[in-house]
């Protein structure tokens, strides 16, 4: 043990550190580290829930089979394709957080009340007119925007944060069914809006068929036939990505950024004001570098989440289809492990996934840590 500390001071620190860690470590070993190690060992066996199969050591056989079978690459491609949206989602969250970080409240209370009253009255009049003239839907949408604006004037950004955050925690079985309806090619909301928009523009487009389509934005790539590539266009993958954006942009990442931007010392901005920096300049030169630790955290969590993601959508919405285009590795692990009960094989896929995530995190770690040092 002597190697762990030098001198009394370090000994004191070390023991304190262990004391603070102990509680977490017990649970960690029991519920995480143990199962993780077990799954590593099991990935080298023919582990199965079947009683008729005796547990045997099989070496790297599971791994060899995974790489030999074309489907793994197809599902990896799907997973990575879904992850292409992550940088945009992170940027969106940062921009939103930057806007919503001040309280956005006017100083005088009477002014706020007056403005809100004006908004409510104008809104009630326009919406009421639309509603009574037999167009309840535009009236409803406008009403939401007016109410949002009025609430924003009254309570400031708190109301906006709540409104933007609700989609992320409302997610569940019901929201997935909801989105299934939205993407209905004939009477769903998505094509309804697209159809109306192209009507105004005077064009007659082929509306996408969303969850029934194997098209994708990268559909022009010459991929092998087993990848079920349906050509360039909007398809099931894009539908799921849009849904992911909806759930993600105003979600946890936005909250994290708000907390982080709020913690940037005000004097940095004051100094920039003296230098005559504009809003964009301040955002780029002060905000972005200052929230680097948060970005680092979000990027790592998004990579981990992205590579392990897509299970719920595939399970409830698409069953991995059409033609396997929305089957991600997580869903593949589920079907292999729980439907076909090849747990050893599923564990091996998981560990390959682990190696990919770990490598990406290490890159992120190096880059992220360097960035943080530059700030402090």
């Amino acid at each position, binding site marked *: 043990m002597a190697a762990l500390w030098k001198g009394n001071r370090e000994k004191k620190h070390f023991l304190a550190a262990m004391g603070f860690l102990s509680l977490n470590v017990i649970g960690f070993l029991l*519920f995480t580290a143990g199962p993780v190690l077990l799954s590593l060992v099991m990935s080298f066996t023919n582990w199965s829930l079947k009683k008729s199969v005796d547990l045997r050591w099989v070496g790297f056989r599971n791994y060899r089979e995974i790489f030999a079978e074309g489907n793994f690459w197809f599902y990896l491609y799907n997973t990575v394709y879904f992850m292409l949206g992550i940088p945009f989602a992170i940027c969106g969250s940062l921009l939103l957080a930057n806007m919503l970080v001040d309280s956005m409240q006017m100083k005088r209370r009477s002014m706020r009340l007056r403005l809100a009253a004006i908004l409510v009255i104008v809104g009630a009049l326009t919406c009421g007119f639309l509603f009574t003239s037999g167009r309840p839907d535009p009236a409803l949408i406008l009403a939401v925007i007016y109410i949002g604006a009025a609430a924003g004037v009254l309570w400031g950004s708190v109301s906006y944060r709540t409104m933007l955050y609700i989609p992320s925690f409302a997610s569940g079985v019901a929201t997935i069914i909801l989105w299934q309806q939205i993407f209905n090619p004939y009477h769903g909301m998505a094509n*309804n809006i697209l159809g109306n928009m192209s009507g105004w523009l005077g064009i007659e487009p082929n509306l996408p068929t969303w969850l029934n389509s194997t098209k994708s934005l990268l559909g022009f790539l010459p991929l092998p036939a087993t990848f079920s590539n349906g050509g360039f266009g909007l398809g099931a993958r894009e539908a799921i990505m849009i849904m992911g954006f909806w759930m993600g942009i105003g979600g946890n990442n936005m909250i994290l950024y708000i907390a982080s931007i709020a*913690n940037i010392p005000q004097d940095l901005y004051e100094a920039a004001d003296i230098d005559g920096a504009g809003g964009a300049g301040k955002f780029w030169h002060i905000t972005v570098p200052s929230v680097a630790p948060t970005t680092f955290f979000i990027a790592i969590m998004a990579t981990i989440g992205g590579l392990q993601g897509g299970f719920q959508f595939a399970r409830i919405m698409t069953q991995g289809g059409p033609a396997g285009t929305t089957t991600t590795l997580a869903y593949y692990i589920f079907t292999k492990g729980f439907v076909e009960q090849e747990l050893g094989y599923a564990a091996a896929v998981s560990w390959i996934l682990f190696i990919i995530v770990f490598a990406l995190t290490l890159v992120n770690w190096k880059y992220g840590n360097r960035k943080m040092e530059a700030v402090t």
Partner: protein
Amino acid sequence: MSARWTQTAAWRGVLLFFKFFFVSLLCGIMFLPFIWMICTAFKSSGEVEGAHFWPKLFSPDNIRIVLKMIRDPFTKEYVNLSLAKWIFNSIFVASWVTTLQVFTSCMAAYSFSRIQWRGRDKVFLLYLATMMIPGMVLTIPRYQVMVSLNMVNTYQGLIIPAAFSAFGTFMLRQFMLGIPQSYDEAAEIDGANHVQIFLDVIMPLAKPGMITLAIFTFLGNYRNLMWPLIMIKDAHLRTVPIGLLSFQGQYGAQVELLMSATLICLIPLIIMFVVMQKQLVRGISLSGGVKG
């Protein structure tokens, strides 16, 4: 020159107006699917798949059916659900998990960020690495652990495994790293030990981080699906997502009922978020004051 006209009150007013306009519009767009959900909850079953938002026949019957105030017109019986019990179970489990998890994560994060010890970053990386294994394959070993601890099909089985989180530790570590080292150095010179530094210096400063984590943990556990699905056998332990899932299994064709039930289950969450949100803002302004 440019510095001058961008600082006039009029320019700021215009900017603020556009900001309000843009954010309101965005909120409207983001809220559309949710509006649809609310509208669906008030539609009759024949209208559910229609392309319109506003119900042609507005009726609160669906809400009354799921609240068991009236019978289902088709089966002539009350629907089989107990929303109040599910919401209680979800809040109960989520509160315990949140309290325990914030506590354990906070302590671990302190150790990983404020104390220098040999091998610290390596151990931390190990923590981080366990998050990168898809949770799916850990389900069966974890289930076996719970079986041997005799915790399957109990509240403890839902609470205890969730009380230790690498995510929370990681998040609070990042947060605590942002607190300048000089604070605890000063305290150490004053003769404070680690427990005192933790309680009196770091915890108050890390409050926004802790509240953020509490919000995430609470909301995440309120709607957690996978683990309770495996752990729970008895109906009286059902949390909201499990209850809604079994409700969907029985009345799946009646989307309007599912939407009504979901809406009711969301109300406690929205209240919770608005309350905690205010705490979050207060916490931020406090620590900003210390730093400023």
